């Protein structure tokens, strides 16, 4: 991600060529012997101006579909807009949610559909001191110097009741705001419309670019809930009538849920017990089966006053239930 940051702040390089408006000059000097006298003469200076190439590129930055829930709010797709021309250029951004080949249409987020990276913090910031900038067409159309890049976020709300694994596509389209540039055939001349009034020429991408990214419902999620399943005090009372006092036995139940799609690698559960309780030896069960406390062939041990259960790589969806008992000191 640091590379994005670098691109955003990179000084104008020569990748797009000599800057538009550069005057290139050349002159020769000639020395000779004229009637025995060494003479030097200089030519006129041949000059011309570098015209502007207007062009833009857009690249999706998400390596995989962005995992979302259903419903969900303010989820970002990340794209990198680059001015690949050799002059400063003004761009307009438009998003499209109605694309073929998907199971649902992402909804332009209630907070706004397109955000521009503020440069303060990598990644989409919906709020806080480093909040990114809401894009408003015609109001803050980005101006990029030659070779400069800007991270753009397509921000969407996700409809409810979508099936796990559903995919939704959104695209971003960027056009140069120079009159007559966007969509024109490569090489189209635009007299006097370049940076600083130089002539411009439409580049290979026709001064426009578009890219599509996707959301997928139900990425991988791991959740844990812990509750007291049973209380039994020294007088034999249980449930709501039981009194928590020294000697009361608490049975804890932990539900470890892996949901969505994919595999949770090296999944492990660790629960250090509080000093106010003492573990009841050999009380651990995993999915209803008893486990030993020793570090041995089973997936469970009780070491350093901590309950450890090692599930290794765990494919979703699955729910593991762990129970154990402690005595109140």
């Amino acid at each position, binding site marked *: 991600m640091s590379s994005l940051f670098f691109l955003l702040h990179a000084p104008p390089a020569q990748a797009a060529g*000599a800057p538009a408006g550069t005057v290139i000059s*050349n002159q020769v*000097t000639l020395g*000779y012997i004229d009637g025995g006298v060494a003479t030097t003469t200089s030519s006129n200076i041949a000059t011309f101006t570098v015209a502007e190439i207007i062009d833009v590129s857009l690249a999706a930055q998400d390596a995989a579909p962005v995992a979302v829930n259903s419903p969900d709010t303010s989820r970002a797709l990340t794209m990198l807009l680059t001015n690949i021309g050799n002059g400063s250029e003004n761009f307009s951004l438009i998003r499209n949610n109605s694309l073929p080949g998907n199971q649902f249409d992402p909804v332009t987020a209630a907070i706004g559909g397109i955000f521009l990276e503020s440069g303060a913090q990598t990644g989409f910031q919906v709020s806080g001191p480093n909040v990114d900038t809401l894009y408003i067409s015609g109001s803050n159309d980005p101006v990029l110097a030659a070779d400069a890049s800007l991270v753009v976020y397509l921000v969407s709300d996700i409809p409810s009741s979508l099936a796990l694994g559903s995919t939704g596509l959104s695209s971003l389209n960027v056009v140069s705001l120079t009159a007559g540039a966007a969509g024109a055939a490569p090489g189209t001349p635009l007299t006097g419309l370049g940076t600083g009034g130089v002539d411009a020429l439409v580049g290979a991408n026709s001064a426009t670019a578009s890219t599509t990214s996707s959301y997928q419902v139900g990425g991988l999620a791991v959740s844990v809930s812990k509750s007291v399943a049973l209380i039994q005090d020294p007088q034999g009372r249980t449930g709501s009538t039981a009194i928590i006092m020294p000697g009361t036995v608490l049975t804890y139940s932990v539900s470890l849920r892996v949901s969505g799609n994919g595999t949770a690698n090296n999944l492990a559960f660790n629960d250090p017990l509080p000093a106010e309780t003492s573990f009841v030896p050999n009380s651990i069960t995993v999915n209803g089966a008893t486990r030993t406390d020793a570090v041995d062939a089973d997936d469970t041990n009780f070491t350093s006053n901590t309950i450890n259960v090692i599930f290794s790589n765990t494919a979703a969806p699955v729910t593991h239930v762990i129970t154990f008992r402690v005595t109140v000191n």
Partner: protein
Amino acid sequence: MKTLTLLNLILSLSIAAVPAAYAQQTGAQQSSARQPGSIELKHVAEIEVKTTDAKGKVTIKRTPADKAIPGTEVIYTTTFKNVGNKPAGNIVINNLLPLHTTLVAGSVFGTNTDITYSVDGKIFATPNKLTVKDQAGKDIPATVKDYTHIRWSFKGNLAAGKSSQVGFRAKIN
């Protein structure tokens, strides 16, 4: 052999361009430098414009470079004419290559001249004798990208009333 063919083509092109260059006596780029002495110098920068007619025939026409985009090849042609009444000798033409451009390999021309190059403006030599230092400070053969100057040394005398041309192509970075 390909290089030779290309060189020949350029030479013939440049000869063909002589009358055109003389015809364009107006404008800053074509105007002769008014210097004392008996050699008149004219230096032009041109680009090639490709046009295709209705029959699909492609013609390449040279026009003075006014505005050009990066990637364009610019043809620099220096015409020198002995306007005096005596032969001129020891003619040496120096060109400090323009910034923001790269010399096109094999494009340097000049009839009846010895052509040498420099990477620093001080030492001029044929390409096989030019070196630059790599990052480790070791001498390595120079390439066209390293050249900063071209020098043409005209062999013998240029007779009164005669003219000749030298030049090269440079690609806008």
